C-alpha cells in the first residue's frame, strides 16, 4: 500500500541464509493458512446435517481461530480502503467533509453491538444460500470497530502536514497524486498504524459479538472463536470457555508479533519530529526480514513497483487523457455543493419519517429511565478509569525503562476485547450471587481503561523534557505538582483517551447488561438489557426503538460533553 523507502544495503555480514530459510517457512505457512481460510469462507450451508455446527472440541480451536483471523484481516483491508478513500475525500473537498465528518464522528461513538442483529439479518438476506452472509456480517462488525477511528486520524494528519513539506513538494512540481504518496501518506503513517493497533480491541470485540449472535438465535453457526465461546457459554462448559480464551490470547499475540510489531518498527522512519528515538522499537520478525538475502530482492521489487505507482501511473493517465475523468474542480461548484446538501437532508428526512412510523410509541416513556441507568454506568466507569489509570500512566510514562517494559504488555492487553472476560466474570457473578447492576461498571471499565492508560503514557513520554526539568528545578512536589503541572499537561491526552473510549464504553454497557451462563441469565436494568431482550424475543420494532434512543443519547453526549471537553483541551492545555 505504502511506498517502501529505499533501503541502503547493509554490510554483507548482517545477512544469513538461515534467516531466509526461516522467513520462507513462515511466509509459506501463512500463505497456506490464508488460502485455506479463504477457500472455506466460500463453502455452502449444505453439510450432511444441513447445518454447520460449532463443536466444542478444543482440537478444532486452531481452525476456528484461523477463520476468525481471516475475517479480522478482511475487515482490516476494508477499513483501510475506507480510510484512504473517505479520509482523502474529507481532507480535500469541503462539501464532502461537511457530511463525512459528522457522520463518522457519530458512528465512532455509536455502540454497534446494538445494531449487530439488524446487520446480520440484512447480510443473510443478501446471501441466502451461502455462509458468506454471516461472514460478511462478521467482517462488517470488524469494519465498524475500527474504520471510523482510522479514517478520522488519517484525515486529521493529512490536514496537519507541515506547510514546509507541502511547499517543498510543490517546488519540485509534484502533482497531487505524487504529493499524496510521497508527503501526505508517509506523514500520516505512524498515526494511522497507532490508531489501527488501538482499535484492535474494538475489532475483536465486534467479531466476538457478531459470531455469537447466530448461536443465540439458533440458526446457522459461523465457525469461529466467538461462536465457540458463545456455544461454550450456553452449554455452561468451563473448560471450553477457558480454551477459547487461551486461543484468542494466543491469536492476538501472534498477530502482534507477525504484523503489528514489524510495522511499528518500519513506520518509525516516517516520524517527523526528531525525538532522538528514546525507545527504539524492536521486532524480531522485522530483523529477520531485514537480515535475509531475500529481502534485498523483495525491496528491489517493491521499489520498482512503488516508483511506477507514484510516478508512472500519473504519466500513464496523462498519456491516455484519463486525467479528465478525475478532474473534478476542487471544492466543486457552489451549485453542486448545494444540491448535495439538499439531497442529504431529504434522504435523512425520508428515512427519519419511516423510522418514526416503525417505532412503537408505547415504550417511549420507559426510555428516559433506562437511558439514565446506562449513562450513569458509563460515566462511573470512565471516572473510575481516570482515577485509577491516570496516576498509573504518569508513573509509567515518566520512566523510560518502564515504558519500554510495559508498552508491549499493554499493547497485547489492550487488544483483548472486554467481552473476552465476560464469561469469566459471569461465572464469578453467578456463583457468588452478585448484582450485575454494579458489576457491569467494572465490565465497562475493562474496555475504557486501556485507552486512558495508553494516551496518558503517550502524553507523558512526549512531554517536553524542559517542562519536567522546570518542575524539578523549582522543587514542585506533591499536590501542587499534580495540580499545576501534571494534570494540565496530560489533560488533552486524558480527553482524547476518554473520547476514543466512548464508543467502546457504550458498546460494553450494552453488552454487559445481560450475561448468560448455561440456562441462567443475569440482567441489569438499562437500555442494553432492553435491546438484548427485545432482539432475543424477535421484537424488531422495540429493538429498533432501543437503538434509536441509544443513538440519540450518544449524540447528546457528543454535543454536550465530549465536544466542549475537547475544545478546552485543544485551546487551553495544548503544548506547542
Amino acid at each position: 500500500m505504502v511506498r517502501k523507502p529505499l533501503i541502503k544495503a547493509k554490510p554483507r555480514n548482517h545477512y544469513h541464509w538461515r534467516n531466509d530459510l526461516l522467513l520462507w517457512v513462515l511466509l509459506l505457512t501463512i500463505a497456506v493458512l490464508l488460502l485455506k481460510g479463504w477457500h472455506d469462507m466460500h463453502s455452502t450451508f449444505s453439510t450432511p446435517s444441513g447445518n454447520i455446527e460449532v463443536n466444542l472440541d478444543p482440537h478444532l480451536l486452531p481452525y476456528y481461530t484461523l477463520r476468525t483471523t481471516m475475517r479480522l484481516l478482511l475487515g482490516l483491508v476494508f477499513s483501510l480502503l475506507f480510510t484512504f478513500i473517505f479520509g482523502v475525500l474529507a481532507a480535500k473537498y469541503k462539501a464532502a467533509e461537511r457530511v463525512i465528518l459528522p457522520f463518522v464522528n457519530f458512528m465512532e461513538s455509536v455502540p454497534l453491538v446494538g445494531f449487530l442483529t439488524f446487520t446480520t439479518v440484512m447480510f443473510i438476506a443478501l446471501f441466502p444460500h451461502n455462509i458468506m452472509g454471516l461472514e460478511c456480517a462478521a467482517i462488517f462488525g470488524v469494519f465498524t470497530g475500527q474504520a471510523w477511528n482510522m479514517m478520522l486520524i488519517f484525515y486529521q494528519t493529512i490536514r496537519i502536514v507541515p506547510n514546509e513539506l507541502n511547499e517543498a513538494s510543490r517546488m519540485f512540481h509534484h502533482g497531487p497524486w505524487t504529493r499524496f504518496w510521497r508527503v501526505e501518506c508517509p506523514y500520516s503513517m505512524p498515526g494511522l498504524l497507532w490508531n489501527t493497533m488501538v482499535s484492535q480491541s474494538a475489532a475483536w470485540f465486534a467479531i466476538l459479538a457478531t459470531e455469537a449472535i447466530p448461536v443465540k438465535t439458533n440458526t446457522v453457526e459461523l465457525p469461529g472463536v466467538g461462536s465457540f465461546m458463545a456455544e461454550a457459554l450456553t452449554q455452561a462448559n468451563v473448560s471450553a470457555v477457558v480454551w477459547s480464551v487461551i486461543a484468542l490470547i494466543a491469536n492476538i499475540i501472534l498477530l502482534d508479533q507477525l504484523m503489528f510489531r514489524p510495522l511499528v518498527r518500519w513506520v518509525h522512519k516516517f516520524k517527523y519530529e526528531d525525538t532522538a528515538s528514546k525507545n527504539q522499537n524492536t521486532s524480531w520478525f522485522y530483523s529477520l526480514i531485514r537480515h535475509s538475502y531475500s529481502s534485498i530482492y523483495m525491496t528491489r521489487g517493491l521499489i520498482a513497483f512503488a516508483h511506477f505507482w507514484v510516478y508512472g501511473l500519473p504519466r500513464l493517465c496523462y498519456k491516455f487523457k484519463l486525467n479528465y475523468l478525475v478532474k473534478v474542480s476542487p471544492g466543486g461548484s457552489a451549485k453542486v455543493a448545494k444540491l448535495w446538501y439538499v439531497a442529504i437532508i431529504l434522504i435523512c428526512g425520508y428515512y427519519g419519517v419511516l423510522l418514526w412510523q416503525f417505532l412503537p410509541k408505547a415504550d417511549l416513556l420507559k426510555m428516559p429511565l433506562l437511558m439514565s441507568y446506562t449513562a450513569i454506568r458509563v460515566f462511573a466507569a470512565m471516572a473510575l478509569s481516570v482515577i485509577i489509570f491516570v496516576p498509573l500512566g504518569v508513573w509509567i510514562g515518566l520512566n523510560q525503562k518502564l515504558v519500554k517494559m510495559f508498552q508491549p504488555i499493554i499493547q497485547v492487553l489492550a487488544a483483548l476485547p472486554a467481552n473476552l472476560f465476560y464469561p469469566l466474570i459471569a461465572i464469578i457473578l453467578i456463583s457468588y450471587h452478585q448484582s450485575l447492576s454494579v458489576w457491569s461498571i467494572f465490565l465497562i471499565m475493562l474496555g475504557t481503561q486501556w485507552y486512558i492508560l495508553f494516551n496518558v503514557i503517550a502524553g507523558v513520554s512526549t512531554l517536553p523534557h524542559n517542562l519536567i526539568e522546570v518542575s524539578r528545578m523549582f522543587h514542585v512536589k506533591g499536590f501542587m505538582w499534580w495540580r499545576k503541572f501534571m494534570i494540565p499537561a496530560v489533560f488533552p491526552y486524558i480527553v482524547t483517551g476518554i473520547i476514543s473510549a466512548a464508543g467502546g464504553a457504550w458498546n460494553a454497557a450494552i453488552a454487559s447488561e445481560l450475561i448468560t451462563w448455561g440456562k441462567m441469565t443475569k440482567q441489569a436494568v438499562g437500555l442494553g438489557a432492553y435491546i438484548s431482550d427485545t432482539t432475543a424475543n424477535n421484537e424488531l420494532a422495540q429493538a429498533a426503538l432501543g437503538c434509536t434512543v441509544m443513538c440519540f443519547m450518544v449524540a447528546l453526549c457528543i454535543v454536550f460533553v465530549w465536544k466542549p471537553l475537547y475544545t478546552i483541551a485543544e485551546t487551553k492545555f495544548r503544548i506547542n
Partner: protein
Amino acid sequence: MTDKKIILHAEHVSKSFEINKNHSLQVLEDISLEVYEGEIVAFLGKSGTGKSTFLRILAGLMEASSGKVTCNGSVINAPSRDMSMVFQSFALMPWLSVFDNVAFGLEALNYSKEKIKSVAQAMIDMIGLAGYENSYPKELSGGMKQRVGLARALAVEPDILLLDEPFSALDIYTAHKIKTDLTELWESRQIKTRSMIIVTHNVEEAVIMSDRVLVWDSNPGRIAREFKIDIPRSERSKRSVLDLVEEISHHQHEQIAYAERKRKPHISLKK
C-alpha cells in the same frame, strides 16, 4: 578574584552515556570549574560539546558519572534551592498565566499567599512584564516569553542563575535588549543573584556579558581554553570588544578545522 568566595565548585566531573552493553559515549571528560561570587561565566562552543549537559549536572538535573559538584558547601545531587535556570525554549507552562508561571517556583517554597503575590508582582514589574499578568504564554512574543522565563527564575532569589542558551531563539534586537536589562539589574544589585553561568554559541554575547569565557571542545567534551575579559563593563561595546571577539573566533575556527581534519569514525548519538 582570589579573595572572592567560591560558590559553585565542580571537581573532575565526567559523564558518559551508555549506548548499549558494549559501547558508551564519553560526553564530558574530567572537568573542574570554580565559580566565584559576583562573576558571570560564559560557556562558549559549537553544539555537541557537552556545555548543556555540564550545566544540567551543575544544576542537579543530571547525575555525573564521576566527580562531584558542591554549591555553597553542600554536595549537589538534586536541584538545589540556591540555583535557578532559564531555558532556551522558555519551558513555560502553557496552561498557566504569566503571573502563575512567575509564581510557579514561589508556590513550591510554601510562602504565604500574600508573599507570593507581592514577590511575583514585584518581579513582573522589574522584568518589564507589567500589564501582561493575565496573558497566557501563547499570546506573547518570543522576547516576552523569555522575560517570563527570567522572572520565574529570578523570583526564587537564587544565588546562581544558570542560563541555557537563553537568547538563541530570539532575534538579535530583542536578545540585545533583554541582555542589557539583565546585566543592569545584576550590576545595580536589584536582584539577589550574585553569579551567573550562561551557555551560548555567540562569541560577542559571551564577551560582552561575562567575566570569563570558557571555550569548549568536543569528543569528549572539555574546556579547551579560558579567556579573561578585563575590559570594564561600562566600557564594553561592539567596538571595544572587537579584538577579543576576533581572537576567540579565530581560536574556534582553528579548533573546528583541526577536528574536521582528524575526524575519524566514532560512535555518534544519532542512530
